[in-house]
């Protein structure tokens, strides 16, 4: 494009096109010439021109029709058009063209000085109008950004006013000030939302932990007569399956089996194996062999394992503060394992080693939910399906190991314990899945801390187990660690798009009708 501007010449005569092109170029403008009104609209639809020199008398689509189409579109409405006419007998045509929006007219036998004056005036007016339109567009952007700010949901980086802020004038300064203010409002609101999430997360976490902490002492109680870890898991999962599938059927959230994809099915099967076969059986088995409070304490290691995996897989931010928090929790546990056990535990070190597998399976569950959980399936329905698969997997194992809980045991106290375990573990698992969904795997893994604390409390309450004083001090360290690991930072919702699409309107329509 020439520095002086680009002129589109529209005339059906080849000789006139050549004449006007050379004349315009001799004045320092760039020129492009087309031979019909339809071609002109097509060119104007795709390229930017500063002025149009338009012949009125043309076959098919005359200059008046071209003018009407140009003025009807917001895209070309402000483009200056100079109509060319022989002055002698065409004055009425010139008047009509100006009424239709032509900027000026040029007689066919023009002087060079007149062409120069007409072109420079038109181009200058176009540039002023372009600047004015640009200014108004940027004011609109700023106004819209202000309304977005008022709505409260926005991302200061995406308010669409960076370009406006780059201006050197007053509007630019206003945009800069606004941008800074938006940034600070955003930060304040983000922190507030984060605090609310942390608080809400902490409440769910404690509830989840209290329920989970109940499971180990109850399992200990249930196994006091005779340990049946697989049979116990079958009973509890059956109750969980009936409850969750029932609720899902009532709410209409149970997905049709035919609608489940390969990813959904593999999640359900693998999660059932991990959660029911490995984790659950392991917990019930360990509970029958070790003091319940020791099993509860070992579970706390889950937090450290999850954070380590998540940091290695880069699925969550590994900040020094979070590392310090989890490290503190780990130190507390080591102190408890080394110095906080009752004296007669030494013979059970093998069992403690096996029990260490429990937090690994919990951590695997936690990460598996965080990374692979099918988001479109409702939590309760998903958990119900998992429980169905769990029961189906556990029954053959119970047959082989002859580990069914005898029916006569289920009457009386053991029956009540199994029922309580089912309620506690299923409710805890549902809360756990929801917690991970809303706060992330690392924060969710802290359920283990709450579970441990509750587990110790329940062990003392239900089983009368004595917990050494040092253990309490170490536990305080663990809870300090909890405070340092915040929930993961949630991505903010995308802000609305602030740039309006250009109106293509009548020019495109005119081009299309001309093409037909």
């Amino acid at each position, binding site marked *: 494009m020439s520095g002086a501007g680009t002129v589109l010449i529209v005339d*059906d*005569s*080849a*000789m*006139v096109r*050549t*004449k006007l092109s*050379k*004349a315009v*170029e*001799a004045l320092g403008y760039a020129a492009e010439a087309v031979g019909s009104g339809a071609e002109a609209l097509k060119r104007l639809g795709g390229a930017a021109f500063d002025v149009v020199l338009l012949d009125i*008398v*043309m*076959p098919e689509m005359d200059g008046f029709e071209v003018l009407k189409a140009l003025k009807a579109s917001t895209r070309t409405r402000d483009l200056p058009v100079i109509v060319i006419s*022989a002055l*002698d*007998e065409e004055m009425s045509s010139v008047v009509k063209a100006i009424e239709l929006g032509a900027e000026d007219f040029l007689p*066919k*036998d*023009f*002087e*060079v000085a007149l*062409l120069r004056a007409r072109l420079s005036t038109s181009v200058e007016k176009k540039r002023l109008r372009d600047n004015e339109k640009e200014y108004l567009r940027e004011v609109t952007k700023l106004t819209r950004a202000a309304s977005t700010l008022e709505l409260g949901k926005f991302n200061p980086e995406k308010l669409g006013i960076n370009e406006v802020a780059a201006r050197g004038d007053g509007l630019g300064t206003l945009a800069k000030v606004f941008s800074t203010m938006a940034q600070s409002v955003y930060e304040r609101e983000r922190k507030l939302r984060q605090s609310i999430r942390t608080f809400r997360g902490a409440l769910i976490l404690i509830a989840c932990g209290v329920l989970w902490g109940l499971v180990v002492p109850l399992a200990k109680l249930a196994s006091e007569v005779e340990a049946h870890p697989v049979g116990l898991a079958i009973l509890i999962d059956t109750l969980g399956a009936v409850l969750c599938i029932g609720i899902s059927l009532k709410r209409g959230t149970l997905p049709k089996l035919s609608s489940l994809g390969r990813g959904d099915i593999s999640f359900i099967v693998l999660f059932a194996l991990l959660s029911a076969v490995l984790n659950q059986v392991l917990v019930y088995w360990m509970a029958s062999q070790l003091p319940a409070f020791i099993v509860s304490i070992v579970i706390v290691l889950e937090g450290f394992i999850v954070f380590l995996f998540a940091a290695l897989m880069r699925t969550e931010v590994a900040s020094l503060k979070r590392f310090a928090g989890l490290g503190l929790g780990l130190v507390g546990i080591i102190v408890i394992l080394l110095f906080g056990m009752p004296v007669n535990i030494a013979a059970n070190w093998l069992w403690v080693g096996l029990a260490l597998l429990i937090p690994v399976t919990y951590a695997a569950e936690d990460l598996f939910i965080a990374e692979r959980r099918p988001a479109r399936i409702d939590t309760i329905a998903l958990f119900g399906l998992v429980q169905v698969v769990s029961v189906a997997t556990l029954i053959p194992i119970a047959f082989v190991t002859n580990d069914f809980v005898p029916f006569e045991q289920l009457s009386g106290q053991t029956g009540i314990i199994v029922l309580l375990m089912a309620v506690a573990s299923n409710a805890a698992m549902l809360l756990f899945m929801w917690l991970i969904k809303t706060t992330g795997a690392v924060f969710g893994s802290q359920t283990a801390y709450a579970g441990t604390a509750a587990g110790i409390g329940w062990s003392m309450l239900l089983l009368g187990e004595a917990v050494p004083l040092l253990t309490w001090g170490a536990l305080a360290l663990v809870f300090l660690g909890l405070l340092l690991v915040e929930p993961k930072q949630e991505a903010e919702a995308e802000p609305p798009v602030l740039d309006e699409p250009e109106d293509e309107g009548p020019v495109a329509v005119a081009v299309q009708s001309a093409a037909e």
Partner: protein
Amino acid sequence: MTIDRQALDKLQEIVGGDPADLVELIDSFLEEAPQLVEALAAAQGSGDLQGARRAAHSLKSNARDMGAGELAQLSAELEAQCAAGVLPGAADVEAVRRALAEAASELRAAFPAVAQ
């Protein structure tokens, strides 16, 4: 001599002063004008008033640029006649054809660089 040299000088000045550009424009005129006369004849033959008017209009403007006074005058009269709703006769078209032939031969004689 019916060609007005002053008109051609003005045309050369408008397009930037290069004589080669003027020759290019004369070439363009000599190629386009006979087509316009044929378009006029066809419109006259088929009774197409608007077609005849447009052809006469273009011939008039182009002839003025070339300084072909007689051709411009005849074309202007035909354009006005069409505007008044009267279709030109075959003799009118013939007169235009003759005027163009005369102007063309004068231009070719005056500008040897023009395609003969």
